[in-house]
């Protein structure tokens, strides 16, 4: 075993150029695998973050659209204590007309608790002004503010379909990045909505985010039994099927690319190792004449594969991570943030590295078997 290893090592260091070439081949394959894998992962994460990062993943609303309901303390407490969930907030919403002296626009008045505002990351989305602290202050989406032609600290009138009105002061303008929201949302404290629509202490929804966004459907299903029968639990996956199928298709194509990269790595290594058996057949013949047994001779090639795989894998991980670092440094949005934020997933990188080792090992099986068949007499007879 030790002898086979040291012969393998000697063979590799003897033909340095060839060894470096094979190692580079493995390394480039693995770095492409890491680069593409993590890039697509980052792309999907940022796509999901952009799509649902600033919105609730699970919402509990009434079966009848827009109707209000009492939130039982027991239910709400159990939700806030559920460690699969983050940011559980109550909302009280209602459709209103926003009126100024010259303009009127239909809008959605959303009454948030502090937790709900956190879900939407509202405070960081403010373009101007501050959050609405009291029930007679509101913040507007930037589209709505433009359409109404209002500025900070001006007063607008909100009117329900029933004709009830209230005057509120605009203290902030936000941009949530979605024009449908920017053009129609007025956000305030939930008390404003409850008072305007005579809801008492009822709400129209509970919104929450989950830690693992892809588990939203199963978590939603597990919450279903604990809510009243006239309420329904809605999760983002059910509402974004086309996004999900898009992501799925992307994942599959990534796997295909990775698979073919791997196949080419394996083919590359095995063909080069097969040639080294021919190159070293004289040496193997001599060693066999001196009494090395077949499995020791095979081990030489297995060890060569192992060494090449490990070194190539390490080099490939370095190259791949370097490529990604370069990509995040140079591919940037105009505002200086990375175009695609990359998470260096240690498990994935370790997986790709071990793929190099395993594929090199697999590739060395063919030359190892070939060396078994080599007889010393052929070498000696052919001089």
């Amino acid at each position: 075993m030790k002898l086979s290893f040291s012969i393998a090592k000697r063979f590799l260091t003897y033909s340095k150029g060839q060894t470096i070439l094979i190692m580079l081949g493995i390394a480039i394959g693995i770095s492409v695998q890491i680069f593409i894998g993590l890039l697509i992962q980052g792309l999907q994460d940022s796509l999901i973050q952009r799509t649902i990062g600033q919105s609730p993943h699970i919402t509990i609303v009434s079966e009848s659209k827009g109707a209000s309901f009492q939130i039982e303390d027991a239910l709400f407490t159990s939700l806030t204590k559920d460690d699969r969930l983050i940011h559980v907030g109550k909302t009280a919403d209602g459709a209103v007309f926003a009126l100024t002296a010259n303009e009127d626009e239909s809008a959605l008045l959303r009454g948030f608790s502090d937790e709900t505002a956190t879900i939407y990351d509202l405070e960081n989305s403010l373009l101007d002004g501050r959050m609405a602290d009291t029930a007679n202050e509101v913040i507007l989406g930037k589209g709505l503010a433009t359409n109404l032609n209002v500025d900070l600290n001006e007063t607008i009138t909100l009117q329900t379909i029933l004709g009830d009105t209230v005057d509120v002061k605009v203290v902030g303008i936000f941009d949530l990045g979605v024009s449908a929201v920017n053009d129609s949302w007025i956000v305030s404290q939930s008390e404003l909505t409850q008072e305007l629509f005579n809801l008492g202490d009822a709400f129209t929804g509970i919104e929450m985010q989950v830690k693992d966004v892809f588990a939203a459907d199963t978590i939603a299903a597990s919450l279903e039994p604990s809510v009243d029968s006239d309420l329904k639990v809605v999760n983002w996956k059910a509402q974004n099927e086309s996004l999900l199928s898009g992501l799925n298709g992307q994942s599959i194509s990534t796997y295909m690319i990775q698979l073919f990269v791997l196949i080419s790595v394996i083919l590359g290594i095995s063909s080069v190792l097969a040639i080294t058996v021919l190159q070293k057949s004289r040496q193997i013949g001599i060693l066999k004449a001196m009494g090395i047994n077949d499995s020791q001779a095979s081990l030489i090639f297995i060890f060569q594969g192992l060494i090449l795989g490990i070194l190539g894998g390490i080099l490939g991980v370095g190259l791949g991570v370097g490529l990604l670092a370069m990509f995040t440094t140079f591919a940037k949005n105009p505002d200086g943030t990375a175009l695609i934020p990359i998470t260096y997933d240690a498990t994935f990188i370790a997986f790709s590295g071990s793929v190099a080792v395993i594929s090199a090992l697999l590739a060395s099986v063919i030359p190892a078997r070939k060396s078994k068949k080599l007889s010393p007499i052929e070498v000696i007879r052919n001089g």
Partner: protein
Amino acid sequence: MANILELQHIDKIYGTSIKTHVLHDVNLSFEEGSFNSIIGQSGSGKSTLLNILGTLDKPTNGKVVLNGKDVSTLKSKELASLRNETIGFIFQFHYLLPEFTAIQNILLPNRIKNAKVSKETMDRALELIDFVGLSAVKDNPANKMSGGQQQRTAIARALINNPRIILADEPTGNLDSDTAEQIYKLMRDINKKYNTTFIIITHDQQIAQKTDRIVEIKDGKILLDLRK
């Protein structure tokens, strides 16, 4: 004295469609500690005979008995280790591994036998390399030595495991007559000191004349078996 190596009714035929009958019913035995030579013209079958003696090649018919064991009954692994411990080869061409230095080449058969090279073996290797006159170049890579140096390294390598039999195929073929004489003396010393059996294939009549027994092969048959 007991026979260390025996050939019984050996036939060797090469090829399947065009058959070349190289050896015809050869019976030959070698006593332990004897010093033998095999001579014959090229194409006479003597190299084939040596390969069969060395268990590198299998006879078409007949039996090879090495150290009391019928080698055809051994598995390839057992045969490999028997070969490693019992037989040292000296080939006409040196067959060193170019990836290793002279001293490492000499130690290789021992490393095949034992995982670790002992101090005694190391001393023996140094002694052998000194004996073949290569102490100065012992750390040179094998491919950076002259032909004569390489052959002498190969001889030292054949001796490292203290084999009971040394099979030599034209060991002095590439060497000048002085060195050939030295190598002959070296082999004789080993023969006396360790009771190692020598079977030497040679063209060199001078060397052959000095051995205890001369076997002449012609057309795959034993023409002459002369014992002194």
